[in-house]
């Protein structure tokens, strides 16, 4: 085989692998979803013998079967082995050979978790071994119990196991061989999944009981730990494209898998197209300004008129005049002037016709605008995916927490069809998980506590997504007890985040914001679910990295609301362009409240800060010079002259406003955001760079950071 075919087959494998990762994630997502439905149904039924929806079981069987096929094709034996078992369980269930019990569902959940972990391992090409022996053993015993799998002799069962799961043979001698010596029933009882009470003690007990048998070093952790074990891996596994919320297949839309990188490139090109369009518009304006004005045309006309009059005046030949010679000279000059004027006139008309050309150009630019706008929008849409699948992933999170903490929590999902940039969806998974866990773990009270304060025992967490203006808002709302302000204060002092005096003067809202400080966590104890992993400061910085913002509101006793606000897209932003000290800056239109011109004499100082009243509201004025530290050498000779009555752009972040003094307003533009981090690193106060129509670069101001700086006076001069 020569090198050429080797690469092409490698490429083919890579593509196959990519398809596998996508599809397996989709299948597992679906499986998870359907298991939740099944779980709900099993919980809700009155009669344990009630028959389950056959179609649901069929669908799950098919999902497992498809996954088995996919994995088998690529030789992922561990996945094939486990899915084979899962498939058998569903097969038995739909043939009524197996009754659907909560332990069976739990087992299936564990199996799906393991499968997700395995897929994640393949995705990250890590060699980590996913330990699925307990699950395999559990399933085996379940099937044996129902008689669907040969209840062979003990040794036979073990052999059977090895044959089925040859891939696991290396690490297999842990659970099943031990148990294979016992009879199938005790095995089921000893199995942690089957019996929670024995779960914690199982590993050690078993070792003692069957010390005679095989080496026991690879005893799996007990199953109660496993959700926590596998959860960190699972968010990555999700790449499902269609809203999994619908149970039955929606209308078939023809789709094509496209590399995200290609879309990124396309997006970049679309951005450049927008830049070019802006440039054309500028050129058009320049041409327009270069053509004759109405005034010019008029004065030319007047000039021709008066010259004609002069000709009339001097034109009549008067023989009698003595100064004939003089008049002749004048006449000749006038005629000459007239002919020159005619030439000028034609020239003028020619120039005027450029105006018509300008109109044409203007039309062309307009068309270009439409096309580039269309391309930009289409490319953007292509990157958009509904938020539904991301949201429904939290059903599982909430279910697990409510089980383990014996709470009753309902997850309400709204706005699942709201679309978000794919990258944002990916980046949001972790912060959202954190918020939902926080709400479920700390927010919602136990059923008894809820009943005590007159709330329904069933707590509600709502995930909502909707458009507001030019941004997308995602809210996580719970009707729990809200955040404990007293506790936050104590904690802030304890952690040395804030002095007692400073806390005294804080409003409740400000106190609440302490939770975003690095090193803060209100968790009373570290539980399985929250209080570990990332803190709220990381949640915040993750969202800010997406140019978004996050707010928290809390009403004691009534619950808390996390509000995440994200820009519609990260690639293009409408901005106001301003000139400050000979530099051009772009301010996101989103943050601009209004533009005012203030009178120099109206500016007063409050605590040394320049302040002005705009319609009765005090507003502090800042110079960019005060907020930014410019390198010394660049500064010299920069600050141009300032108007006595400067223009002020009022910018806002949440509920704080400041007035930024600018030298000149240049207008509004669609701005393609280029990250500084790509080739340099991020700069505080600047959220990116923009290439202007003329090819120069302007900086895009990070309004949030600017206001922060100005209010904290952190600026170092």
């Amino acid at each position, binding site marked *: 085989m020569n090198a050429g075919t080797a690469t092409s087959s490698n490429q083919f494998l890579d593509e196959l692998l990519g398809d596998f990762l996508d599809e397996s994630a989709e299948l597992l997502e679906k499986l998870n979803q359907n298991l939740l439905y099944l779980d709900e149904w099993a919980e809700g039924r009155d009669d344990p013998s009630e028959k389950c929806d056959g179609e649901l079981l069929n669908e799950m069987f098919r999902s497992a079967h498809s996954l088995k096929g996919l994995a088998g094709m690529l030789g992922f034996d561990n996945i094939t082995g486990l899915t084979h078992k899962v498939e058998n369980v569903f097969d038995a269930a739909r043939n009524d050979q197996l009754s659907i019990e909560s332990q069976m569902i739990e087992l299936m959940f564990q199996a799906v978790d393991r499968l997700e972990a395995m897929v994640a391992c393949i995705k990250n090409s890590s060699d980590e071994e996913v330990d699925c022996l307990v699950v395999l053993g559990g399933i085996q015993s379940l099937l044996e119990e129902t008689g669907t799998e040969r209840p062979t002799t003990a040794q036979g069962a073990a052999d059977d196991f090895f044959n089925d799961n040859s891939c696991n043979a290396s690490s297999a001698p842990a659970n099943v061989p031990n148990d294979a010596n016992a009879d199938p029933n005790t095995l089921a009882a000893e199995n942690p999944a089957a019996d929670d009470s024995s779960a914690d003690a199982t590993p050690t007990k078993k070792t003692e009981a069957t010390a005679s048998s095989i080496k026991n070093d690879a005893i799996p952790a007990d199953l109660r730990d496993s959700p926590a074990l596998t959860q960190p891996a699972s968010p990555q596994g999700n790449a499902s494209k269609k809203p999994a919320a619908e149970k039955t297949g929606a209308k078939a839309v023809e789709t094509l898998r496209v590399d995200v990188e290609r879309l990124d490139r396309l997006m*970049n090109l679309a*951005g*450049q197209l927008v*830049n070019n369009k802006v440039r054309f518009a500028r050129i058009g304006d320049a041409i327009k300004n270069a053509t004759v004005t109405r005034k010019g045309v008029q004065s030319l006309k007047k000039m021709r008129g008066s010259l004609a009059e002069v000709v009339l005046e001097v034109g009549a030949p008067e023989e009698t005049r003595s100064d004939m010679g003089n008049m002749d000279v004048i006449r000749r000059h006038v005629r000459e002037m007239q002919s020159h004027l005619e030439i000028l006139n034609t020239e003028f008309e020619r120039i005027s016709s450029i105006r018509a050309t300008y109109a044409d150009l203007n039309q062309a630019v307009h068309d270009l605008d439409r096309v580039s706008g269309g391309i930009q929008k289409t490319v953007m849409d292509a990157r958009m995916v509904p938020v539904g699948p991301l949201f429904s992933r939290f059903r599982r999170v909430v279910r697990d927490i409510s089980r383990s903490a014996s709470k009753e929590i309902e997850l309400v999902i709204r706005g699942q069809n709201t679309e978000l940039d794919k990258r944002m969806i990916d980046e949001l998974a972790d912060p959202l998980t954190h918020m939902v866990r926080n709400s479920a773990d700390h927010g919602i009270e136990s059923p008894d506590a809820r009943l005590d304060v007159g709330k329904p025992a069933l707590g509600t967490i709502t995930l909502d997504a909707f458009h507001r203006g030019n941004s997308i808002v995602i809210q996580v709302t719970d009707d729990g007890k809200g955040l404990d302000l007293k506790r936050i204060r104590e904690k802030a002092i304890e952690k040395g985040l804030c002095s007692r005096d400073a806390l005294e003067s804080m409003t409740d809202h400000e106190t609440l914001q302490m939770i975003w400080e690095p090193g803060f966590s209100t968790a009373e104890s570290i539980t399985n679910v929250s209080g570990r992993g990332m803190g709220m400061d990381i949640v915040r910085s993750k969202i800010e990295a997406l140019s978004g913002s996050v707010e928290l509101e809390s009403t004691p006793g009534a619950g808390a609301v996390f509000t995440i606000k994200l820009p519609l897209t990260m690639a293009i932003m409408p901005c106001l362009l301003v000139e400050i000290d000979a*530099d051009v800056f772009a301010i996101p239109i989103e943050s601009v409240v209004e533009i005012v011109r203030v009178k120099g004499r109206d500016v007063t100082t409050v605590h040394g800060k320049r302040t002005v009243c705009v319609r009765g509201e005090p507003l502090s004025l800042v110079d960019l010079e005060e907020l*930014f*530290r*410019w*390198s*010394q*050498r*660049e500064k010299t000779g920069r600050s141009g002259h300032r108007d006595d009555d400067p223009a002020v752009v009022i910018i806002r972040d949440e509920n704080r406003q400041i007035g930024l003094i600018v030298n000149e307003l240049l207008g509004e533009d669609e701005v393609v955001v*280029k*990250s*500084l981090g*790509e*080739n*340099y*690193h991020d*700069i*505080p*106060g*600047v959220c990116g*760079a923009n*290439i202007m129509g003329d*090819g*120069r*670069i*302007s*900086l895009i101001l990070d309004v949030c950071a600017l206001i922060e700086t100005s209010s904290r006076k952190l600026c170092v001069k």
Partner: protein
Amino acid sequence: MSTTVTESVAGDAAENVASEQLVGFRLDQEEYGIAITKVQEIILVGEITRVPQTPDYIKGLINLRSTVIPIVDLRRRFGLHEQDATDETRIMVVNVLGKTIGIIVDAVSEVLRVSNNQIAPPPPTVAGLGREYLTGLVKLENRLLILLDIDKILGEEEAGSIGAIG
């Protein structure tokens, strides 16, 4: 995009000694060399947008075919005195640790091939701050070329000004 790059092969090809190609440039009175593999292109100095909260030697940002890249003023980086741009001043666009950046140099002189036996370690006299930025000296017929480790020069942000090298 005019460059003043000329090819001159200085190595001894017949001896088959391992050799590498360098881009030579001038800064103040001295000549430096960077491995050609690091250099992406050489461009004229255009308008540079200044950037706040950056060290002195970051001159600003430029637009390189729709990519925004930072520009380092090597004179400032080495603590040399300021000099206005001349006709010879160039920006060398280099790739450093996966990032693309531009460095301003007084002039780009040539591309030359040197064999490894022409490269000597830096003399002990330049021990100290400057030393870690040079990987060696290249002995040419009647002059010396300072080999710069461009990765290190740009990697350290905190060093605002550094004593002149050599």
